C-alpha cells in the first residue's frame, strides 16, 4: 500500500531520440549500447519503472537481517524489519545524503549515520538526531524518515521492487514466465532453495549485451567451444553439457519462447532423456563426481538417480526483464554500473531439505552441487564476457551504425505465436531479442512518474 507518494521530477527520455529509428524490426542502432544519455534514461525508464530483482528471501531469513544491493544505480538496503516486513530502503541519510550502511550484509534494528549520528529504525523511521535543541523543526515530520521503494513484492522467495506506482502487480508483470519459474523451483524438495554465495563477475560493456545473450542459442558452440571440448575430453559419448547444440540445433526438440513484458525462456529440457538420472547422465565431471555418485547409489539404490539430478544443472534459461535469470541452478543477476560496465553475479543455490525428503542425502547433494555450479562461471561465462567486451570495443566504429538481430525473421512457419501470445522459435533464433527490445523501446518512449515513500 502506498502510504505517501512524492512524484519525483524527472525529465522525459521520450524526446531524446526517434526511438523507432534506433530500434527497427531487424536491427538496432549502436547508440543503445554506447550512449551515456540513453543509459541515464534507462536508470529511470527501465531500472525504476519496471519490477527489478533485488534479492532472495533466504539472504534475509530473520527479522532485522539486511543485505545491501542496488536498484539501477540507487544504493538500497534490502531488509526484513523488526516486524518481519520486507523493505527496500534507499541507503541514504535524509540529512546530508550519506549512505547509512556500508556492509554487504548483517543484522540491525537501527541504522546510525556515521557522519552526524542521525539514527533510524529499520522501518525507515527517524529515531533520533544528536542535540535536537539546535533545530527549530519538528522531527516527527515524515520527510525526515528514510526514503524507500514504494512497491516491494516477492514471488516464491524472489524479491522484486519498483518505483513505479502504475506498474502492474508483480504477478501480472511476471505473467507466463511464472510457469517455468515454478517448474525450476518445484524440482527441489518442497520447492525451496537457499542462496549460498556467488561467482561474481563484471565486464566492460553495456548491460543489454548480457540480456541479449541470456536467451541466445546461436552463440553456444562458438563462444563456448573451449568448454564443450573440455567437458567432453574424457567422455565415452560426447554428450556432456550443452553438446546438443552441435550439429543442427534448430531441429532439436529444445526451443526458445518469448513470454511478454521482455521475459524470455530457453527450454533445453526436451533434449534430455525423461528419466530419473537423465540430467546427471549429461552433467560434466566435477570434483567429487564419482565418489558421491557411488556413495548415493550404494545408500539409495534406484532412488539415487533422482537425487543426483538435483546436483545437476537444470537445462533452462528463464530470463525476467531486465536483470534476473534462472539458469542451471544459478540465480544470475545483471547490475548496470555505467553505460559500458556491468556486474554479472551468479548466485549459487543449495537444496534445502527441512523435512528429510532426501533421506539425509542433502549434504552430499549440496557438496556436489556447489562444484557443478562452479563449472560454467569458471569455464563458460568468462568467454562470453570477453566477447561482450569485444562487442563494446567494436561498437566504437561510429560510422558502422547497426547491430543485427534478424535470425529467423521472415522465414514462413519458423516463428509461431500461440493463443496466449507466447512466441516460440527454434533454439538459435533471435526472435526473443527482437521482442524484448520492442518492449524496451516501448518503455523508453514512456514518461513514467516514479515515486518514493516514507513512513508516516
Amino acid at each position, binding site marked *: 500500500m502506498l502510504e505517501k507518494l512524492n512524484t519525483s521530477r524527472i525529465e522525459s527520455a521520450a524526446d531524446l531520440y526517434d526511438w523507432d529509428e534506433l530500434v527497427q524490426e531487424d536491427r538496432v542502432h549502436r547508440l543503445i549500447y554506447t550512449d551515456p544519455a540513453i543509459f541515464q534514461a534507462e536508470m529511470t525508464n527501465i531500472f525504476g519503472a519496471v519490477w527489478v530483482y533485488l534479492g532472495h528471501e533466504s539472504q534475509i531469513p530473520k527479522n532485522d537481517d539486511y543485505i545491501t544491493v542496488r536498484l539501477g544505480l540507487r544504493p538500497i538496503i534490502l531488509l526484513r524489519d523488526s516486524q518481519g516486513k520486507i523493505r527496500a530502503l534507499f541507503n541514504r541519510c535524509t540529512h546530508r545524503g550519506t549512505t547509512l550502511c556500508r556492509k*554487504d550484509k548483517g543484522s540491525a534494528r537501527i541504522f546510525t549515520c556515521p557522519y552526524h549520528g542521525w539514527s533510524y529504525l529499520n522501518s525507515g523511521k527517524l529515531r533520533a538526531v544528536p542535540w535536537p535543541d539546535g533545530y527549530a523543526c519538528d522531527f516527527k515530520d515524515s520527510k525526515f524518515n528514510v526514503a524507500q521503494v514504494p512497491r516491494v513484492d516477492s514471488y516464491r522467495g524472489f524479491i522484486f521492487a519498483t518505483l513505479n506506482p502504475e506498474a502492474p502487480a508483480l504477478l501480472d508483470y511476471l505473467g507466463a514466465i511464472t510457469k517455468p519459474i515454478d517448474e525450476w523451483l518445484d524440482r527441489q524438495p518442497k520447492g525451496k532453495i537457499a542462496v*549460498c*554465495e*556467488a*561467482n*561474481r*563477475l*563484471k*565486464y*566492460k560493456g553495456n548491460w543489454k549485451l548480457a540480456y541479449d545473450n541470456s536467451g541466445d542459442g546461436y552463440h553456444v558452440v562458438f*563462444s563456448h*567451444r*573451449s*568448454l564443450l*571440448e*573440455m*567437458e567432453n*575430453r*574424457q567422455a565415452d559419448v560426447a554428450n556432456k553439457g550443452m553438446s546438443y547444440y552441435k550439429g543442427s540445433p534448430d531441429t532439436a526438440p529444445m526451443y526458445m519462447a518469448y513470454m511478454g513484458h521482455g521475459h524470455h525462456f530457453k527450454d533445453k529440457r526436451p533434449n534430455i532423456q525423461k528419466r530419473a538420472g537423465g540430467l546427471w547422465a549429461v552433467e560434466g*565431471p*566435477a*570434483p*567429487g*563426481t*564419482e*565418489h*558421491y555418485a*557411488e*556413495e548415493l547409489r550404494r545408500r539409495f539404490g534406484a532412488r539415487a538417480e533422482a537425487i543426483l539430478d538435483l546436483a545437476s544443472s537444470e537445462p533452462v534459461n528463464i530470463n525476467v526483464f531486465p536483470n534476473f535469470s534462472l539458469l542451471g541452478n544459478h540465480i544470475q543477476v545483471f547490475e548496470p554500473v555505467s553505460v559500458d560496465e556491468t*556486474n*554479472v*553475479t*551468479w*548466485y*549459487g543455490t*543449495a537444496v534445502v531439505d527441512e523435512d528429510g525428503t532426501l533421506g539425509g542425502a542433502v*549434504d*552430499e547433494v*549440496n*557438496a556436489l552441487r*556447489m*562444484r557443478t*555450479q*562452479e563449472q560454467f562461471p*569458471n*569455464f563458460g561465462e*568468462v*568467454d562470453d*564476457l*570477453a*566477447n561482450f*567486451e*569485444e562487442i563494446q570495443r567494436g561498437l566504437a566504429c561510429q560510422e558502422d551504425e547497426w547491430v543485427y538481430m534478424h535470425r529467423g525473421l521472415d522465414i514462413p512457419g519458423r516463428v509461431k505465436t500461440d493463443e496466449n501470445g507466447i512466441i516460440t522459435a527454434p533454439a538459435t533464433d533471435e526472435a526473443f531479442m527482437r521482442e524484448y527490445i520492442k518492449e524496451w523501446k516501448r518503455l523508453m518512449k514512456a514518461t513514467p512518474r516514479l515515486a518514493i515513500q516514507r513512513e508516516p
Partner: protein
Amino acid sequence: MQPIHDPSTSSYYVNEQLYQELVASFTDWQRDDMAVDNLSERDQFRILVEKEARLLDQLRFDEWLAMYSPECIYWVPGTPEAGDPRREIAISFDDRRRMEDRIYRLRTGYAWSQAPKSRTVRMISNVETFSTGQSSVRMVRSNFLISEFRVDGTRFLSGWCGHRFVRTAHRWEIQVRQVNLIDCDQNLRNPSIVL
C-alpha cells in the same frame, strides 16, 4: 603412494573426509608458536613458492601440475573467511581433474577470455612457514601481487596464499593451495588466469 583411482580421470578423493580435513587444516594455523624460524627450512619453502609463481608466469602448466600431489586441491574462496566449500560456492575449487581441465581449456585455442593470453608477473613476499604437529606437513603463508596485462591495460590482483605441503619420499609436494584475493567477494573482471 599412488592412489587406487587415477585422480586425472575420476574424483573419489573429494569426499566428506577431505572437506572436513581441509576446513580444519585451514582454520587457526597461522600461530606464532607454530612458526618455523629455521632459516634453511623457511628458504626451502620460499624457493618452492617462488618456483610455482615463475612456472605460472611462463605458462609452464605441466611442470606446475607436477609440483602438486596426485590428489590435490586448488581453492580460491569467494569470501574473506573462506567458508565451508560443502555449503558455499567458491570462485574456484578444483581437484586434480578440474585443474587439468582448466589447463586443457586454456590450450584449446578457443578460450576467448585468454585469447590473446594475459602476460603476468608475480611478486611473492612475506613467506612464513608453520609446522602442524605432523612432521610430514607444513603450512606456508605468502603474499602475492600479480601484474596482469591483457588487451587494454595492466591490472593488479593481490592477496595471500596458504600452501599445504606434504612430504613424500623424495620431496615436498603441494597438496592444497588456497588463494585468497583481497577482493574475493567483489565482482571480478575476467578471472580466467590460473592465480
